[in-house]
Protein backbone atom coordinates (compact mmCIF):
# COMPACT_ATOMS: atom_id res chain seq x y z
CA UNK A 1 0.00 0.00 0.00
CA UNK A 2 1.71 3.18 -1.17
CA UNK A 3 -1.13 5.61 -0.53
CA UNK A 4 -0.94 7.71 2.57
CA UNK A 5 -3.23 6.74 5.45
CA UNK A 6 -4.16 9.85 7.36
CA UNK A 7 -5.10 9.10 10.95
CA UNK A 8 -4.37 12.47 12.52
CA UNK A 9 -7.63 14.35 12.09
CA UNK A 10 -7.40 15.82 15.58
CA UNK A 11 -4.25 17.68 14.48
CA UNK A 12 -5.88 19.05 11.39
CA UNK A 13 -8.18 17.94 8.62
CA UNK A 14 -8.27 18.10 4.88
CA UNK A 15 -10.19 21.14 3.70
CA UNK A 16 -13.18 19.84 1.78
CA UNK A 17 -13.16 20.61 -1.96
CA UNK A 18 -16.67 22.06 -1.58
CA UNK A 19 -15.31 24.40 1.06
CA UNK A 20 -12.49 25.52 -1.21
CA UNK A 21 -14.99 26.05 -4.01
CA UNK A 22 -17.08 28.23 -1.73
CA UNK A 23 -14.01 30.28 -0.81
CA UNK A 24 -12.55 30.77 -4.26
CA UNK A 25 -14.73 33.63 -5.52
CA UNK A 26 -13.78 35.68 -2.48
CA UNK A 27 -10.12 35.79 -3.43
CA UNK A 28 -10.13 37.07 -6.97
CA UNK A 29 -13.67 38.25 -7.70
CA UNK A 30 -15.55 39.35 -4.62
CA UNK A 31 -12.44 40.56 -2.89
CA UNK A 32 -13.80 43.79 -1.38
CA UNK A 33 -13.35 44.87 2.23
CA UNK A 34 -16.66 44.21 4.01
CA UNK A 35 -16.37 47.52 5.85
CA UNK A 36 -16.54 49.53 2.64
CA UNK A 37 -19.78 51.31 1.75
CA UNK A 38 -20.03 50.39 -1.92
CA UNK A 39 -22.24 47.62 -3.16
CA UNK A 40 -19.30 45.53 -4.43
CA UNK A 41 -18.02 45.10 -0.89
CA UNK A 42 -21.30 44.99 0.97
CA UNK A 43 -22.06 41.63 -0.62
CA UNK A 44 -19.03 40.37 1.31
CA UNK A 45 -20.52 41.64 4.52
CA UNK A 46 -23.57 39.60 3.66
CA UNK A 47 -21.44 36.53 2.99
CA UNK A 48 -19.72 36.92 6.35
CA UNK A 49 -23.04 37.24 8.10
CA UNK A 50 -24.43 34.21 6.32
CA UNK A 51 -21.53 32.14 7.65
CA UNK A 52 -22.09 33.66 11.06
CA UNK A 53 -25.74 32.63 10.87
CA UNK A 54 -24.83 29.05 9.95
CA UNK A 55 -22.52 28.84 12.93
CA UNK A 56 -24.97 30.47 15.31
CA UNK A 57 -27.58 27.95 14.28
CA UNK A 58 -25.18 25.06 14.88
CA UNK A 59 -24.75 26.31 18.45
CA UNK A 60 -28.35 27.26 19.09
CA UNK A 61 -27.07 30.81 19.50
CA UNK A 62 -28.04 34.20 18.18
CA UNK A 63 -26.17 35.54 15.14
CA UNK A 64 -24.94 38.51 17.16
CA UNK A 65 -23.16 36.19 19.59
CA UNK A 66 -20.59 34.76 17.15
CA UNK A 67 -17.27 36.61 16.68
CA UNK A 68 -14.67 35.46 14.19
CA UNK A 69 -11.03 35.15 15.23
CA UNK A 70 -7.76 34.04 13.68
CA UNK A 71 -8.17 30.53 15.13
CA UNK A 72 -9.06 28.47 18.15
CA UNK A 73 -6.01 29.60 20.10
CA UNK A 74 -6.92 33.25 19.74
CA UNK A 75 -10.49 32.48 20.81
CA UNK A 76 -9.22 30.71 23.96
CA UNK A 77 -6.84 33.55 24.76
CA UNK A 78 -9.55 36.10 24.22
CA UNK A 79 -12.17 34.40 26.38
CA UNK A 80 -9.81 33.89 29.28
CA UNK A 81 -7.78 37.10 29.24
CA UNK A 82 -10.70 39.38 28.52
CA UNK A 83 -12.79 37.79 31.27
CA UNK A 84 -9.91 38.18 33.68
CA UNK A 85 -9.72 41.83 32.75
CA UNK A 86 -13.42 42.65 32.62
CA UNK A 87 -14.31 40.93 35.87
CA UNK A 88 -11.26 41.71 37.96
CA UNK A 89 -13.30 43.93 40.24
CA UNK A 90 -15.27 40.81 41.13
CA UNK A 91 -12.33 38.50 41.68
CA UNK A 92 -9.09 37.02 40.42
CA UNK A 93 -9.72 33.30 40.55
CA UNK A 94 -10.07 31.00 37.55
CA UNK A 95 -10.86 27.30 37.56
CA UNK A 96 -9.67 25.01 34.78
CA UNK A 97 -8.37 21.45 34.46
CA UNK A 98 -5.02 19.75 34.14
CA UNK A 99 -5.90 18.36 30.73
CA UNK A 100 -6.67 21.53 28.80
CA UNK A 101 -4.97 22.36 25.53
CA UNK A 102 -1.91 24.58 25.85
CA UNK A 103 -3.95 27.44 24.40
CA UNK A 104 -5.83 27.43 27.69
CA UNK A 105 -3.07 26.24 30.02
CA UNK A 106 -0.42 28.68 28.90
CA UNK A 107 -2.92 31.52 28.94
CA UNK A 108 -3.78 30.63 32.53
CA UNK A 109 -0.12 30.45 33.44
CA UNK A 110 0.35 33.88 31.91
CA UNK A 111 -2.44 35.21 34.07
CA UNK A 112 -0.91 33.61 37.15
CA UNK A 113 2.19 35.70 36.53
CA UNK A 114 -0.09 38.73 36.47
CA UNK A 115 -1.80 38.39 39.79
CA UNK A 116 -4.51 35.87 39.03
CA UNK A 117 -5.02 32.63 40.88
CA UNK A 118 -5.75 29.48 38.89
CA UNK A 119 -7.00 26.12 40.14
CA UNK A 120 -6.10 23.22 37.86
CA UNK A 121 -8.62 20.47 38.58
CA UNK A 122 -7.64 16.82 38.53
CA UNK A 123 -9.46 14.37 36.32
CA UNK A 124 -10.24 10.74 36.94
CA UNK A 125 -8.48 7.87 35.20
CA UNK A 126 -10.69 8.32 32.15
CA UNK A 127 -10.00 12.00 31.93
CA UNK A 128 -13.29 13.21 33.36
CA UNK A 129 -13.53 16.18 35.66
CA UNK A 130 -14.84 15.42 39.14
CA UNK A 131 -17.85 17.62 39.68
CA UNK A 132 -17.61 17.60 43.46
CA UNK A 133 -14.03 18.86 43.20
CA UNK A 134 -15.21 21.58 40.87
CA UNK A 135 -17.84 22.66 43.40
CA UNK A 136 -15.26 22.64 46.17
CA UNK A 137 -12.83 24.72 44.15
CA UNK A 138 -15.27 27.61 43.78
CA UNK A 139 -14.45 30.66 45.87
CA UNK A 140 -16.11 34.03 46.27
CA UNK A 141 -13.37 35.37 43.97
CA UNK A 142 -13.98 32.87 41.16
CA UNK A 143 -14.80 34.70 37.94
CA UNK A 144 -14.37 31.98 35.31
CA UNK A 145 -14.62 28.26 34.85
CA UNK A 146 -12.91 27.15 31.65
CA UNK A 147 -13.18 23.45 30.89
CA UNK A 148 -12.73 21.91 27.49
CA UNK A 149 -15.65 20.20 25.80
CA UNK A 150 -13.64 17.25 24.53
CA UNK A 151 -9.98 16.48 24.96
CA UNK A 152 -7.72 16.61 21.92
CA UNK A 153 -5.52 13.71 22.98
CA UNK A 154 -7.70 11.11 24.58
CA UNK A 155 -11.03 12.28 23.19
CA UNK A 156 -12.82 12.32 26.53
CA UNK A 157 -16.03 14.36 26.56
CA UNK A 158 -16.76 16.29 29.74
CA UNK A 159 -20.15 16.57 31.46
CA UNK A 160 -20.59 20.05 30.05
CA UNK A 161 -24.23 20.50 30.95
CA UNK A 162 -23.54 19.64 34.59
CA UNK A 163 -20.58 22.01 34.65
CA UNK A 164 -22.76 24.70 33.12
CA UNK A 165 -25.32 24.19 35.86
CA UNK A 166 -22.73 24.47 38.57
CA UNK A 167 -21.38 27.65 36.97
CA UNK A 168 -24.86 29.12 36.67
CA UNK A 169 -25.83 28.22 40.22
CA UNK A 170 -22.70 29.96 41.47
CA UNK A 171 -23.06 32.89 39.05
CA UNK A 172 -19.69 32.27 37.45
CA UNK A 173 -18.97 32.57 33.72
CA UNK A 174 -18.35 29.30 31.92
CA UNK A 175 -16.08 29.06 28.89
CA UNK A 176 -15.49 25.85 27.01
CA UNK A 177 -12.78 25.10 24.46
CA UNK A 178 -14.84 23.17 21.93
CA UNK A 179 -12.16 23.11 19.24
CA UNK A 180 -12.34 19.31 19.09
CA UNK A 181 -16.06 18.98 19.75
CA UNK A 182 -17.77 21.61 17.64
CA UNK A 183 -19.78 20.07 14.80
CA UNK A 184 -18.63 16.62 15.94
CA UNK A 185 -21.08 16.17 18.81
CA UNK A 186 -24.35 17.88 19.73
CA UNK A 187 -23.89 21.28 21.30
CA UNK A 188 -26.51 23.75 22.44
CA UNK A 189 -25.05 26.67 24.30
CA UNK A 190 -28.28 27.59 26.05
CA UNK A 191 -29.23 24.10 27.19
CA UNK A 192 -25.69 23.53 28.36
CA UNK A 193 -25.26 26.85 30.15
CA UNK A 194 -22.24 27.84 28.10
CA UNK A 195 -21.30 31.53 28.21
CA UNK A 196 -18.33 31.38 25.86
CA UNK A 197 -17.16 28.74 23.42
CA UNK A 198 -14.10 28.50 21.17
CA UNK A 199 -13.82 26.65 17.88
CA UNK A 200 -11.44 26.40 14.93
CA UNK A 201 -12.36 25.70 11.31
CA UNK A 202 -9.44 23.48 10.35
CA UNK A 203 -10.55 20.79 12.77
CA UNK A 204 -13.75 20.21 10.83
CA UNK A 205 -12.60 20.22 7.21
CA UNK A 206 -12.54 24.00 7.03
CA UNK A 207 -9.54 26.24 6.34
CA UNK A 208 -6.72 27.01 8.75
CA UNK A 209 -6.37 30.45 10.31
CA UNK A 210 -10.01 31.04 11.16
CA UNK A 211 -11.93 30.36 14.35
CA UNK A 212 -14.62 31.96 16.43
CA UNK A 213 -15.55 32.81 19.95
CA UNK A 214 -19.18 32.55 20.95
CA UNK A 215 -19.95 35.21 23.55
CA UNK A 216 -23.36 35.10 25.16
CA UNK A 217 -25.26 38.36 25.20
CA UNK A 218 -24.58 40.13 28.46
CA UNK A 219 -21.06 38.82 28.92
CA UNK A 220 -19.21 42.07 29.05
CA UNK A 221 -15.76 41.11 27.83
CA UNK A 222 -14.09 43.52 25.44
CA UNK A 223 -11.46 43.14 22.73
CA UNK A 224 -8.25 41.20 22.77
CA UNK A 225 -7.18 42.72 19.45
CA UNK A 226 -7.84 46.47 19.27
CA UNK A 227 -8.27 48.57 16.14
CA UNK A 228 -11.04 48.97 13.57
CA UNK A 229 -14.73 48.53 14.31
CA UNK A 230 -15.08 45.04 12.84
CA UNK A 231 -17.03 42.25 14.58
CA UNK A 232 -19.29 44.68 16.43
CA UNK A 233 -16.20 46.50 17.70
CA UNK A 234 -14.98 43.45 19.56
CA UNK A 235 -12.37 41.99 17.21
CA UNK A 236 -10.48 44.40 15.01
CA UNK A 237 -8.82 43.59 11.71
CA UNK A 238 -9.99 43.25 8.13
CA UNK A 239 -12.27 40.23 8.00
CA UNK A 240 -10.79 37.07 6.51
CA UNK A 241 -13.71 36.79 4.11
CA UNK A 242 -12.67 33.61 2.26
CA UNK A 243 -11.80 32.02 5.59
CA UNK A 244 -15.13 32.95 7.12
CA UNK A 245 -17.05 31.74 4.08
CA UNK A 246 -15.10 28.49 4.12
CA UNK A 247 -15.77 28.06 7.81
CA UNK A 248 -19.48 28.58 7.20
CA UNK A 249 -19.53 26.03 4.41
CA UNK A 250 -17.58 23.51 6.48
CA UNK A 251 -20.00 23.90 9.38
CA UNK A 252 -22.98 23.58 7.09
CA UNK A 253 -21.68 20.26 5.74
CA UNK A 254 -20.42 19.02 9.09
CA UNK A 255 -23.77 19.65 10.76
CA UNK A 256 -25.73 18.03 7.95
CA UNK A 257 -23.58 14.91 8.05
CA UNK A 258 -22.88 14.76 11.77
CA UNK A 259 -25.10 11.86 12.67
CA UNK A 260 -24.05 9.56 9.82
CA UNK A 261 -20.44 10.54 10.17
CA UNK A 262 -20.35 9.82 13.87
CA UNK A 263 -21.99 6.46 13.33
CA UNK A 264 -19.45 5.50 10.68
CA UNK A 265 -16.50 6.75 12.69
CA UNK A 266 -17.60 5.07 15.89
CA UNK A 267 -17.94 1.77 14.11
CA UNK A 268 -14.46 2.03 12.61
CA UNK A 269 -12.98 3.36 15.84
CA UNK A 270 -14.41 0.49 17.85
CA UNK A 271 -13.13 -2.01 15.34
CA UNK A 272 -9.67 -0.46 15.60
CA UNK A 273 -9.74 -0.41 19.39
CA UNK A 274 -10.94 -4.00 19.59
CA UNK A 275 -8.23 -5.30 17.27
CA UNK A 276 -5.39 -3.37 18.85
CA UNK A 277 -6.30 -4.35 22.39
CA UNK A 278 -6.77 -7.97 21.38
CA UNK A 279 -3.69 -8.33 19.22
CA UNK A 280 -1.02 -6.19 20.84
CA UNK A 281 -0.10 -7.32 24.34
CA UNK A 282 0.72 -4.88 27.15
CA UNK A 283 -1.52 -2.22 25.63
CA UNK A 284 -4.13 0.04 27.14
CA UNK A 285 -6.76 2.34 25.76
CA UNK A 286 -6.56 5.85 27.18
CA UNK A 287 -9.67 7.89 27.80
CA UNK A 288 -13.23 6.90 28.45
CA UNK A 289 -14.60 3.94 26.54
CA UNK A 290 -17.95 5.60 25.84
CA UNK A 291 -17.75 9.32 26.58
CA UNK A 292 -15.25 9.93 23.82
CA UNK A 293 -15.13 11.66 20.47
CA UNK A 294 -16.40 9.42 17.65
CA UNK A 295 -13.08 9.51 15.84
CA UNK A 296 -10.54 9.22 18.65
CA UNK A 297 -8.48 6.22 19.70
CA UNK A 298 -5.50 6.60 22.03
CA UNK A 299 -3.31 3.71 23.07
CA UNK A 300 -0.31 3.22 25.32
CA UNK A 301 2.08 0.47 24.36
CA UNK A 302 4.27 -0.46 27.28
CA UNK A 303 8.07 -0.53 26.91
CA UNK A 304 8.26 1.58 23.76
CA UNK A 305 8.58 5.25 23.00
CA UNK A 306 6.16 7.30 20.94
CA UNK A 307 8.40 9.16 18.53
CA UNK A 308 10.08 6.01 17.32
CA UNK A 309 6.69 4.45 16.76
CA UNK A 310 5.50 7.49 14.82
CA UNK A 311 8.53 7.57 12.58
CA UNK A 312 8.15 3.92 11.75
CA UNK A 313 4.46 4.35 11.03
CA UNK A 314 5.44 7.29 8.83
CA UNK A 315 7.87 5.06 6.92
CA UNK A 316 4.81 2.97 6.22
CA UNK A 317 2.85 6.04 5.09
CA UNK A 318 0.67 6.16 8.16
CA UNK A 319 0.18 9.63 9.66
CA UNK A 320 -0.45 9.51 13.38
CA UNK A 321 0.41 11.40 16.48
CA UNK A 322 1.67 10.96 19.98
CA UNK A 323 0.39 13.67 22.24
CA UNK A 324 -0.80 16.76 20.42
CA UNK A 325 0.94 17.97 17.30
CA UNK A 326 1.76 21.36 18.65
CA UNK A 327 3.67 19.95 21.57
CA UNK A 328 5.82 17.81 19.34
CA UNK A 329 8.54 20.42 19.79
CA UNK A 330 8.52 19.39 23.42
CA UNK A 331 10.11 16.30 24.92
CA UNK A 332 7.89 16.05 27.94
CA UNK A 333 5.37 13.27 28.02
CA UNK A 334 1.84 14.42 27.47
CA UNK A 335 0.41 16.35 30.41
CA UNK A 336 -2.95 14.76 29.66
CA UNK A 337 -1.65 11.22 30.00
CA UNK A 338 0.15 12.10 33.20
CA UNK A 339 -3.05 13.67 34.52
CA UNK A 340 -5.00 10.44 34.00
CA UNK A 341 -2.37 8.73 36.10
CA UNK A 342 -0.02 7.07 33.61
CA UNK A 343 3.59 6.74 34.74
CA UNK A 344 6.14 8.63 32.65
CA UNK A 345 7.45 5.74 30.63
CA UNK A 346 4.01 4.52 29.68
CA UNK A 347 2.83 7.99 28.80
CA UNK A 348 5.83 8.16 26.49
CA UNK A 349 4.66 5.16 24.53
CA UNK A 350 1.32 6.54 23.47
CA UNK A 351 -0.25 6.71 20.06
CA UNK A 352 -3.20 8.80 18.98
CA UNK A 353 -5.18 7.74 15.94
CA UNK A 354 -7.99 10.08 14.91
CA UNK A 355 -10.19 9.02 12.04
CA UNK A 356 -12.20 10.77 9.40
CA UNK A 357 -15.23 9.46 7.58
CA UNK A 358 -12.96 8.81 4.60
CA UNK A 359 -10.94 6.11 6.33
CA UNK A 360 -11.70 2.53 5.32
CA UNK A 361 -11.62 -0.83 7.04
CA UNK A 362 -8.72 -1.79 4.77
CA UNK A 363 -6.72 1.17 6.02
CA UNK A 364 -7.43 0.21 9.61
CA UNK A 365 -6.46 -3.40 8.96
CA UNK A 366 -3.20 -2.34 7.36
CA UNK A 367 -2.52 0.05 10.22
CA UNK A 368 -3.13 -2.60 12.86
CA UNK A 369 -0.75 -4.99 11.12
CA UNK A 370 1.92 -2.32 10.97
CA UNK A 371 1.42 -1.37 14.60
CA UNK A 372 1.91 -4.99 15.57
CA UNK A 373 5.13 -5.30 13.55
CA UNK A 374 6.57 -2.02 14.77
CA UNK A 375 5.66 -2.41 18.41
CA UNK A 376 7.25 -5.84 18.30
CA UNK A 377 10.41 -4.48 16.70
CA UNK A 378 10.70 -1.60 19.16
CA UNK A 379 10.07 -3.81 22.13
CA UNK A 380 12.88 -6.11 21.01
CA UNK A 381 15.08 -3.01 21.11
CA UNK A 382 13.82 -1.83 24.49
CA UNK A 383 15.80 -2.29 27.70
CA UNK A 384 12.51 -2.23 29.60
CA UNK A 385 11.01 -5.23 27.86
CA UNK A 386 11.97 -8.73 28.97
CA UNK A 387 10.06 -11.48 27.26
Amino acid at each position, binding site marked *: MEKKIYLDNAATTRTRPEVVDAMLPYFTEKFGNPSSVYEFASQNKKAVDEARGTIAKALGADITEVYFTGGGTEADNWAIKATAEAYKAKGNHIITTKIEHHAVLHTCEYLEKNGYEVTYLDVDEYGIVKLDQLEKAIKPTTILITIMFANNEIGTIQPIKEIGEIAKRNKILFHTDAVQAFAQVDINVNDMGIDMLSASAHKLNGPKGIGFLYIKKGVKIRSLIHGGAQERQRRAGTENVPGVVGFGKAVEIAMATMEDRAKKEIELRDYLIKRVLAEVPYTRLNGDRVKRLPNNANFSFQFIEGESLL*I*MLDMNHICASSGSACTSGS*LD*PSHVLLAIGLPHEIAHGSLRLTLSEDNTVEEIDYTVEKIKEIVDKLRK*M*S*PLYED
Partner: protein
Amino acid sequence: MYTEKVMDHFSNPRNVGEIENASGVGTVGNAKCGDIMRMYLDIDETGVIQDVKFKTFGCGAAVATSSMATELVKGKTVEEALKITNKSVMEALDGLPPVKVHCSLLAEEAIHAALWDYAEKNNIKIEGLEKPKSDIHEEEETIEY
Protein backbone atom coordinates in the same frame (compact mmCIF):
# COMPACT_ATOMS: atom_id res chain seq x y z
CA MET B 1 13.71 16.52 10.48
CA TYR B 2 16.42 13.84 10.60
CA THR B 3 19.32 13.32 8.20
CA GLU B 4 19.47 10.30 5.94
CA LYS B 5 22.15 8.72 8.12
CA VAL B 6 20.00 9.14 11.21
CA MET B 7 17.06 7.58 9.42
CA ASP B 8 19.24 4.74 8.23
CA HIS B 9 20.54 3.96 11.71
CA PHE B 10 17.08 4.40 13.15
CA SER B 11 15.34 2.05 10.76
CA ASN B 12 18.18 -0.50 10.62
CA PRO B 13 19.88 -0.10 13.94
CA ARG B 14 23.20 -1.97 14.19
CA ASN B 15 24.06 -4.15 17.16
CA VAL B 16 20.69 -4.30 18.85
CA GLY B 17 20.55 -6.91 21.57
CA GLU B 18 22.25 -8.16 24.68
CA ILE B 19 25.55 -9.86 25.48
CA GLU B 20 25.40 -12.58 28.07
CA ASN B 21 28.12 -12.30 30.63
CA ALA B 22 29.30 -9.03 29.13
CA SER B 23 32.55 -7.49 30.34
CA GLY B 24 30.67 -4.33 31.14
CA VAL B 25 27.06 -3.19 31.10
CA GLY B 26 25.92 0.40 31.47
CA THR B 27 22.40 1.73 31.77
CA VAL B 28 21.70 5.42 31.68
CA GLY B 29 18.55 7.45 31.70
CA ASN B 30 17.73 10.85 30.39
CA ALA B 31 16.18 13.04 33.02
CA LYS B 32 14.91 15.37 30.36
CA CYS B 33 12.65 13.00 28.55
CA GLY B 34 12.54 9.76 30.51
CA ASP B 35 14.41 7.72 27.92
CA ILE B 36 16.73 4.84 28.76
CA MET B 37 19.74 3.26 27.06
CA ARG B 38 21.64 0.13 28.02
CA MET B 39 24.97 -0.81 26.47
CA TYR B 40 26.82 -4.14 26.64
CA LEU B 41 30.56 -4.37 25.96
CA ASP B 42 32.60 -7.48 25.35
CA ILE B 43 36.23 -6.53 26.00
CA ASP B 44 39.14 -8.92 25.54
CA GLU B 45 42.27 -9.26 27.68
CA THR B 46 44.16 -6.69 25.60
CA GLY B 47 41.46 -4.11 26.29
CA VAL B 48 39.94 -4.15 22.83
CA ILE B 49 36.19 -3.99 22.49
CA GLN B 50 35.34 -7.11 20.54
CA ASP B 51 31.59 -6.85 20.59
CA VAL B 52 28.95 -4.38 21.60
CA LYS B 53 25.16 -4.44 21.81
CA PHE B 54 22.53 -1.99 22.95
CA LYS B 55 18.92 -1.62 23.91
CA THR B 56 17.24 1.75 23.87
CA PHE B 57 13.87 3.08 24.93
CA GLY B 58 13.83 6.45 23.31
CA CYS B 59 13.20 8.70 20.38
CA GLY B 60 14.51 8.29 16.87
CA ALA B 61 17.63 10.28 17.69
CA ALA B 62 18.30 8.16 20.73
CA VAL B 63 18.03 4.95 18.73
CA ALA B 64 20.22 6.27 15.93
CA THR B 65 22.92 7.60 18.23
CA SER B 66 22.93 4.32 20.15
CA SER B 67 23.40 2.43 16.93
CA MET B 68 26.10 4.76 15.66
CA ALA B 69 27.89 4.73 19.01
CA THR B 70 28.10 0.95 18.97
CA GLU B 71 29.56 1.09 15.47
CA LEU B 72 32.12 3.61 16.63
CA VAL B 73 33.31 1.71 19.72
CA LYS B 74 33.49 -1.69 18.09
CA GLY B 75 37.12 -2.74 17.63
CA LYS B 76 38.42 0.21 19.58
CA THR B 77 40.54 0.00 22.71
CA VAL B 78 39.05 1.16 25.98
CA GLU B 79 41.13 4.33 25.79
CA GLU B 80 39.97 5.09 22.26
CA ALA B 81 36.37 4.40 23.21
CA LEU B 82 36.63 6.87 26.03
CA LYS B 83 37.37 9.60 23.52
CA ILE B 84 34.09 9.14 21.72
CA THR B 85 31.87 12.06 22.59
CA ASN B 86 28.29 12.90 21.74
CA LYS B 87 29.79 15.36 19.26
CA SER B 88 31.63 12.67 17.35
CA VAL B 89 28.50 10.53 17.27
CA MET B 90 26.45 13.44 15.95
CA GLU B 91 29.05 14.23 13.33
CA ALA B 92 29.05 10.64 12.19
CA LEU B 93 25.28 10.98 11.77
CA ASP B 94 25.56 14.24 9.80
CA GLY B 95 24.03 16.16 12.66
CA LEU B 96 20.85 16.24 14.75
CA PRO B 97 18.14 18.89 15.10
CA PRO B 98 18.95 21.30 17.95
CA VAL B 99 16.15 20.00 20.13
CA LYS B 100 17.62 16.51 19.84
CA VAL B 101 21.23 17.25 20.71
CA HIS B 102 20.69 16.13 24.29
CA CYS B 103 19.66 12.66 23.09
CA SER B 104 23.17 12.03 21.84
CA LEU B 105 24.48 12.51 25.36
CA LEU B 106 22.70 9.30 26.24
CA ALA B 107 25.05 7.35 23.97
CA GLU B 108 28.20 8.96 25.35
CA GLU B 109 27.08 8.31 28.89
CA ALA B 110 26.10 4.72 28.14
CA ILE B 111 29.61 3.95 26.85
CA HIS B 112 31.10 5.50 29.97
CA ALA B 113 28.74 3.60 32.25
CA ALA B 114 29.58 0.29 30.58
CA LEU B 115 33.31 1.02 30.82
CA TRP B 116 32.92 1.93 34.50
CA ASP B 117 31.16 -1.37 35.11
CA TYR B 118 33.98 -3.17 33.31
CA ALA B 119 36.60 -1.36 35.40
CA GLU B 120 34.81 -2.16 38.62
CA LYS B 121 34.36 -5.80 37.74
CA ASN B 122 38.04 -6.07 36.94
CA ASN B 123 39.17 -3.86 39.74
CA ILE B 124 41.07 -1.50 37.45
CA LYS B 125 41.10 2.21 37.07
CA ILE B 126 40.61 3.77 33.66
CA GLU B 127 42.39 7.08 33.34
CA GLY B 128 39.98 9.92 32.76
CA LEU B 129 36.80 7.99 33.46
CA GLU B 130 34.51 9.29 36.14
CA LYS B 131 31.68 7.50 37.82
CA PRO B 132 28.71 8.09 35.63
CA LYS B 133 25.60 9.50 37.14
CA SER B 134 22.58 7.30 36.97
CA ASP B 135 20.76 10.14 35.31
CA ILE B 136 22.09 12.68 32.93
CA HIS B 137 21.40 15.88 34.75
CA GLU B 138 21.74 18.46 32.12
CA GLU B 139 21.66 22.10 32.89
CA GLU B 140 18.46 23.70 31.74
CA GLU B 141 18.95 24.48 28.10
CA THR B 142 18.84 28.19 27.58
CA ILE B 143 16.54 28.59 24.66
CA GLU B 144 17.11 31.94 23.09
CA TYR B 145 13.55 32.67 22.13
